């Protein structure tokens, strides 16, 4: 077992775990943060996307030994975040959610995108969300929601 110290949604935590436990399992099973979903479990679907030091990563492929000192943000941290909150509201308004399983991952990718590029074009939105798969919506309303949130945040 190893002890890793990192932060989740602004709070410092210390966890004792096997070095090869995935960040996804630490969040969901160790900390009860079940907003982050497991989809394919091999880094391809994006359902488990979280931000690590601000950059979107697939938490199913990140191991406990790799997160020492890192800042993790999950979907549970979005409500207290300006961009995150705007995205959540825009997703509801645009009707961007159907079954909802992929949405936490989309929100995290969109959060990283808007922070880096407050005025993204449609192509840039598509690029920013290219690592997330949705089997319900056909993506159009998700793109609309991200554009709407970005527009509102620009004021």
């Amino acid at each position: 077992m190893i002890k890793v110290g990192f932060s989740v949604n602004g709070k410092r935590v210390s966890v004792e775990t096997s070095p090869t436990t995935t960040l996804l399992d630490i969040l969901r099973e160790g900390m009860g943060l079940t907003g982050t979903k497991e989809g394919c479990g091999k880094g391809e679907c994006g359902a488990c996307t979280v931000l690590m030091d601000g950059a979107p990563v697939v938490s199913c492929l990140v191991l406990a030994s790799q997160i020492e000192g890192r800042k993790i943000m999950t979907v549970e941290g979005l409500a207290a975040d300006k961009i995150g909150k705007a995205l959540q509201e825009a997703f509801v308004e645009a009707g961007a959610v159907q079954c909802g399983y992929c949405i936490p991952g989309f929100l995290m990718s969109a959060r990283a995108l808007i922070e880096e590029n407050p005025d993204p074009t449609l192509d840039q939105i598509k690029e920013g969300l290219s690592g997330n798969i949705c089997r319900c919506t056909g993506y159009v309303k998700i793109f609309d929601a991200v554009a709407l949130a970005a527009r509102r945040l620009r004021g």
Partner: protein
Amino acid sequence: MRRIDTLSPGTLQEALEILAREGEGVKVIAGGTDLVVQVLERRKSPRLLLNLSRIGDLREIGEDGETVRIGALVTHRQIERSPILKRRAPLLCEAALLIGSPQLRNLATIGGNIVNASPVADSTPPLMALDATVSLRSARGERKIPLRAFFLGPGKTVIRRDELLAEVSFAGLGPDAASFYERLGQRRLLSISKVGVALAARRDGAALRGVSISLGAVASTVIMAPRTAAFIEGKPLGDEVAREAARIAEKESRAITDLRSTESYRNRMAGALLQKGLARLTAP
């Protein structure tokens, strides 16, 4: 994931000492995007993981006169955005943008992509076209090996058990350069390449000089296409030259049939992608 003992050194020197000491059954983990999946699918079962995530070095892209150096722990995300590489190796930036997804590119490293030695790796054809050199470090010292002599087969390289790939370097392209990376996958992203073609050269009027072409996913390693390059060398570019070059590239391609594509399709597409890339170079 099943529990595997892990050592997490803070410096490169410590990592090299661990490799020298530990012997068999150690796997180095950098970004982990290939290795974690291989372990999950039980295709690899290391006894010990050597985790490089706490090493501060090897994370920079630098320029030193002609030479461009990329540390082994540089991520593909850094590569796709690097102002130095956009100027000195734009074909490598093009390739990085086609790898995985943003979430994978934030984790996956250039060193991992090289050492993994997949014949379909997208960063390798550009680096081979640039005639890159890899620096292999061990507690005993350093070896520099041309990337073109580094790969032995799928997953097999000349790297020794106690060595780490520390850096990849090459002579950066100048302002008169022409280059591209073209590839074909099932989709644009999150797909494994069926064929990839990289070209690097200098412009000389309407012609190219110093042409170097590599082909990915059409042999057991990424290969060079010297006959195609020699044909293009010095000829004014145009439809006719591109068509004939494509025919030669099809013959230099040595594809096999597997679950992703067939031999004949891959060989034809090696030519077609070359033609497409050459058309890009002559576009107004």
